[in-house]
């Protein structure tokens, strides 16, 4: 498409940076404000976790490969840290910030503890608005219901906006097998679709990619110049390639950020306006909505809208906050309300409040482990701190390692706009997974031995009689995997002349 017709040919010049800035400031909204970083050499994009069926995902292994790609790791860390700092600035602009968080948390907890009532109210009001409402117990149900609707309309192509729920459901793969073409309309999600890769972040799905990676993907898939990684050129090229597909699509699909029970309406927040295209261009609009998205009243929406984009991207509000009430004249609107494990999660005493999540991604942006690992290292739909506490509910075995990919630093809980105690739930999941025997035997044996040693002072004293001896033996109850993982990339502590214990014996021996 290098010489094809484009809407804005002036943006094609790769090095004409003046043209970008000509009319004043660079666009400063949402992801557009993230710092552009130019790669000096072409470093290959590290790929995500290796998935072997049901076997536990080795996040640490994938994270190590991400760190071994320093340009990617640095860009990723700095870009997300930038979002965290913007979030902080927004927070400081709102004196009642902590009250807002408390309110948002209380509204969600109230709704979740009366979820059946509010869902029925939502369904009744949505039907009264002329919307069809379907209930899906799980991912398979969801995919089948959507497929049936599309079949009834003879639809062969579907444009959709970003939706983590459809990722959960493996929706694109299902539709590909059913012979229906799905076209993502969110730029980042489209990049990921074209690269046949999952989103790595709930809000900025291609955040782990350098623009040179995007140039490579677009050159391969939509025919752009492989040597031109100017972001404006790339964005414009994607737009030129996607827009005709949007205009010709048979059906459109969105998710929802909030579903309002009293009105039977739902709200989608985007920065690209792509949900509006997906919903309004074709006559058929299908919205997939997780059952935890319902809130009681329209007035509650204000609380969440004030928090959502400030927490996510550090912008006061998303560019588009679109309310959908019912089908357009001559059109049809369907809502699929999806459970897919949510009811079961609601019954978990220590973990049900994870359902308060509004998918802002603030916990990911602030997480020092996530920033240095990349979202794909988690090998799951949800990555980062929120992923650690949600993923095991989908598959305790496959995601049994994830709750250990955390330092329990607690920054995630502090930035969470709905006050989920994320780091405490990570800790609780570790206990839970041990109870469910989803931990390796060697670790189990080491921990049991450590418990024995530490509860017997004489044996313990013998084991660490001298610091030199301790250095050789202490790792046994700190390190369970038999490797000297401590010393691979850092020095071991310098053994002192004597332990505190023996110093005390010599210097305060009379005192016990």
């Amino acid at each position: 498409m290098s010489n094809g017709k484009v809407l804005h040919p002036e943006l094609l010049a790769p090095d004409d940076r003046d043209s970008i800035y000509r009319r004043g400031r660079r666009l400063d909204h949402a992801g557009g404000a993230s710092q552009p970083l130019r790669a000096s050499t072409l470093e290959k994009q590290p790929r995500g976790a290796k998935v072997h069926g049901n076997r536990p995902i080795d996040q640490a292994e994938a994270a190590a490969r991400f760190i071994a790609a320093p340009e990617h790791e640095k860009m990723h860390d700095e870009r997300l840290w930038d979002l965290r700092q913007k979030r902080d600035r927004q927070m400081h602009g709102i004196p009642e910030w902590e009250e807002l968080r408390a309110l948002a948390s209380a509204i969600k907890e109230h709704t979740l503890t009366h979820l059946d009532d509010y869902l029925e109210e939502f369904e009744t009001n949505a039907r009264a608005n002329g919307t069809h409402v379907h209930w899906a117990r799980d991912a398979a149900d969801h995919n089948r219901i959507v497929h049936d609707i599309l079949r009834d309309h003879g639809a062969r192509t579907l444009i959709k906006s970003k939706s983590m729920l459809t990722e959960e459901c493996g929706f694109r793969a299902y539709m590909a097998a059913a012979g229906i073409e799905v076209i993502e309309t969110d730029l980042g999600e489209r990049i990921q679709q074209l690269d046949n890769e999952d989103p790595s972040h709930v809000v900025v799905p291609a955040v782990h990619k350098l623009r040179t990676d995007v140039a490579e993907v677009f050159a391969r898939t939509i025919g752009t110049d492989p040597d031109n990684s100017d972001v404006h050129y790339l964005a414009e090229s994607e737009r030129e390639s996607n827009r005709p597909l949007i205009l010709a699509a048979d059906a459109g699909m969105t998710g929802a950020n909030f579903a309002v029970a009293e009105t039977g309406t739902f709200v989608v927040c985007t920065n690209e306006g792509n949900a509006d295209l997906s919903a309004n261009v074709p006559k058929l609009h299908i919205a997939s909505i997780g059952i935890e998205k319902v809130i009681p009243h329209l007035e509650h929406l204000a609380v969440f809208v004030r928090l959502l984009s400030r927490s996510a991207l550090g912008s006061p509000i998303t560019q588009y906050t679109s309310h959908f009430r019912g089908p357009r004249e001559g059109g049809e609107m369907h809502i699929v309300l999806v459970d897919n494990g949510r009811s079961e999660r609601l019954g978990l005493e220590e973990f049900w409040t994870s359902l308060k999540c509004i998918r802002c991604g603030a916990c990911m942006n602030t997480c020092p482990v996530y920033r240095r690992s990349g979202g794909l290292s988690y090998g799951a739909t949800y990555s980062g701190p929120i992923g650690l506490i949600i993923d095991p509910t989908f598959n305790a075995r496959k995601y049994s390692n994830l709750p250990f990919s955390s330092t329990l630093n607690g920054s995630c809980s502090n930035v969470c706009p709905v006050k989920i105690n994320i780091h405490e739930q990570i800790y609780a999941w570790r206990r839970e997974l041990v109870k469910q025997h989803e931990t390796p035997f060697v670790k189990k044996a080491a921990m049991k031995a450590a418990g024995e040693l530490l509860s017997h002072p004489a044996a313990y004293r013998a084991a660490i009689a001298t610091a030199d001896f301790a250095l050789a033996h202490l790792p046994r109850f700190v390190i369970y995997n038999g490797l000297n993982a401590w010393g691979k990339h850092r020095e071991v502590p310098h053994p002192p002349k004597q332990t505190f214990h023996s110093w005390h014996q010599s210097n305060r021996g009379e005192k016990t």
Partner: protein
Amino acid sequence: MRIGLFVPCYIDAFFPEVGIATLELLERFGYDVVYPRAQTCCGQPMANSGFNADCADTEALFVRNFSGFDYIVAPSGSCVQHVRDNFDAIEQTDDVKRVRARTFEIVEFLHDIVKPDAFPWARFPHRIGLHNSCGTLRRLKHAAPSELREAPFSKPMDLLSKVAGIEFVVPARPDECCGFGGTFSVFEEVVSTKMGYDKVSDHARAGAEYIVSADTSCLMHQQGCAERIGVPLKFIHIAQILNGASA
């Protein structure tokens, strides 16, 4: 007032000077400080890994060692936080509850209980970067964390500002975790050490000579990282400075 001195296992074995400074500091303020010699560890390595049941005997031993004191004081934020927040593998008798509630980290003990006006014996003419460990910052609430909208305060800074000669430097990401994280440091050692490299580099760029912390485990990790990549920083526990260490 009788104080039970809790010296966590890795301080006992690798950083005895931190235990000594804590003991001497408490003695300077006239407290009767007892070191129960049958103490081992708080059980955090097992609990942190999810093996709570394996902590029961260690917790029971801890309570036997430390019941009967007015306060239990330790120079380690994460161990204190563990005792206070997570010590629940054993039945929660009045004795257990009392020991848990009376266990203090040295900075908060000095700041909240002792409330000294000055440390006349202390002088530390160096540029220091303060490292608030995550346990002390977000659990024990030593200071206002940057994520929350609350009035700024810092207990370690309050204490250190009473020591002559200190010049404070502030890194770009003061609240960022250094990557130690207990068993995380070995479970995910590549990410752990990368975080450590970033942390010590941040302090070095800010011009620090010393990184000062109330958590020796973070310092042990950071020192190991700094030595590996050749960042010329020194590390010291806050109790050592408050007790008058000169370098």
